[in-house]
């Protein structure tokens, strides 16, 4: 009985802590998003004297000729296309690297790992993009985002494929599958959980990316959601209320995404962790 009480107490404390750690900053953002710029500048967690969410939200939406709407569109396109490219390429690469054993594969494996470890350089990348005419285009940025997430995705796919028995490949060949058929009809559908994990994790990091769009996609019309945050802060003048309102607006899509796919993330992360 005593033990049970203790356990309940620990649980209550843990939940309270989690609420404090995640809830306070969030409520801070939410309350400040509804204040006037004067009130928000005081950086207090106290509720607003008069809430003006609608006014702040519409002001954020109207900033710089409705820049935010364009940013939402751009970010969504970039996220969807780069995830599609990433999953297509890295699942095939992971499949081949897992199944084929040769010396070349160990070298390729080394290169993929190098991609995880060596940080990307900005200026040479811009040179490359310019020389193939992809600089300042959405396609250029989508390729970069896909390339940056490629090594990690390949590792995840390889780990997962280890749990899919080779006998399946052999059986498919006996039944008359070609190599491509095997991948498209048998293997890829089996990898759905890990594909979902990769899609979720990378789509959030791509959607929330700040640095890469800043450098590789300059131009007034090429803005992405994170870049809109800079409309409200500078060294000498801040509009905290609008900044927080913008944060709220741009965190809605990832939030919905996360809530809907929450279960898939966990199942995908542990998929392939235990080999049987």
């Amino acid at each position: 009985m005593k033990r049970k009480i203790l356990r309940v107490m620990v649980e209550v404390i843990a939940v309270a802590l989690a609420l404090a750690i995640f809830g306070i900053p969030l409520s801070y953002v939410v309350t400040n998003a509804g204040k006037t710029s004067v009130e928000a500048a005081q950086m207090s967690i106290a509720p607003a004297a008069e809430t003006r969410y609608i006014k702040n939200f519409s002001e954020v939406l109207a900033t710089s000729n409705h820049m935010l709407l364009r940013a939402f569109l751009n970010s969504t396109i970039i996220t969807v296309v780069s995830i599609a490219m990433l999953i297509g390429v890295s699942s095939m690469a992971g499949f081949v690297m897992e199944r084929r054993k040769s010396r070349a594969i160990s070298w390729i494996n080394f290169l993929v790992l190098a991609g995880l470890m060596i940080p990307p350089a900005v200026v040479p990348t811009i040179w490359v993009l310019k020389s193939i005419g992809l600089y300042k285009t959405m396609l250029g940025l989508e390729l970069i985002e896909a390339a940056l997430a490629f090594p990690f995705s390949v590792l995840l796919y390889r780990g997962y494929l280890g749990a899919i028995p080779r006998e399946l490949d052999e059986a498919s060949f006996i039944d008359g599958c070609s190599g491509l058929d095997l991948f498209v009809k048998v293997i890829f559908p089996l990898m759905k959980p890990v594909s979902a994990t990769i899609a979720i994790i990378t789509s959030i990091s791509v959607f929330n990316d700040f640095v890469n769009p800043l450098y590789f996609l300059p131009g007034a019309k090429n803005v992405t959601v994170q870049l809109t945050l800079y409309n409200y802060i500078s060294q000498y003048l801040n509009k905290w209320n609008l900044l927080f309102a913008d944060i709220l607006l741009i965190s809605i899509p990832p939030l919905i995404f996360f809530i809907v796919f929450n279960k898939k993330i966990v199942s995908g992360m542990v998929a392939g962790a235990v080999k049987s």
Partner: protein
Amino acid sequence: MKRSSIALAAAMALLTVAGGFAADRQKLVWLQWANDGAQKNLDAIIAAFEAKYPIDIELEFKPGSAEGENLVKTRIAANDMPDLLSFNSGSLFQVLNLEKNFVDLSNEKLASRLVDSFKSTVSVSGKGVYGIPYQPIPAGGILYNKKVYAQLGLKVPKTWKAFIANCEKIKAAGKVAVIASYKDDWTAQLLLLADFYNVNVANPKFAQDYTANKAKYASTPAALRGFEKIQEVFTKGFTNKEPVSITYDMAQAMLASGEGAHYPMATWVLTSINQNYPDKINDIGFFALPGDSADKNGVTLWMPNNISISKTSKHIDAAKQFLDFFVSPEGLAAYMSVSTPDGAFAIKGVKLPDNVFPAVKDILVYVDANKTAPALEFLSPVKGPNLPQICVEAGLALKTPAACAVEYDRDVEKQAKQLMLPGW
């Protein structure tokens, strides 16, 4: 080389394709800070310019922090600068290799309109003019609440002693005498940086000797005073409680409401105070940071940021036309039609409207009497990256002023060596 020419050709092809839609109007792209306080004023200049000439201006925004600097450097390295750029004047601008990357304007008519002290901050060792002033001249000193002064019957102090005496009275009245907003650590430097007029009066060759590694903060009593002043306001109990949890924005609220009487800051804060407390802006006055002698009282001026033209621009003539319009009476009239400027312009023969903020009028008294000096960072390329943190240490009495000065001298040394200055 070959690759870059291919890239250029590709870029040109893209540009011509894009230009095909714009018909006979030229388009200039201006890489500008996001959320500039005077953006509406600049928009007014752009609108007036577009109405007069067949040229359109498109703004592209960059962040204001170090991220923005990196972005500019990256785009220069990638040979991809927009036509126009706004950037800091002085030592930060010099790093961009002006002769190679930007158009020299010294032979243009507009150069003759610029004030000489500004020109020196956008030239390479005295040669060339690579930018025009983008905003009014900010001045550093003490912003004070006039209502508090009137209530307590205080006079604007001309010496540090008088200032301390005023602070004692304000403290006795239960108010914060000196607002310290060390949560934004850059604000801690203002007492030191704005004190440079006094350093310069006591020691006119300081900037020169400092650059040549002959003078040091620790060994020059007048320069050391800056650190001492930061500490003195704390040890005498004039600052607010918990300086490290007060931000720049909170400090403005304290000053505007009269909860605090003095705020060591530069006048760029006025736009922000006017945004948040428009009914209080007329209560705010300005005086120069007091020195030790009443008849040698003057103000330290920052130099305005600048707009420059990239050498890689395809429309250099159009860009020159824009800059010429910007500094012309017509352009400035458009600027002032939106709101009053928060300082004098670094352009000759500009008359400010009568309804400028009272604090700006206070500055003009010093400017008209020619009692001004540029801040040290515009006279010497030597400025250490850790000054904000060191000033906070002085301001919380974690270290003695002398120890802070020694630490800053060491901080500066690294940077001077990186710039490969002679004598270091």
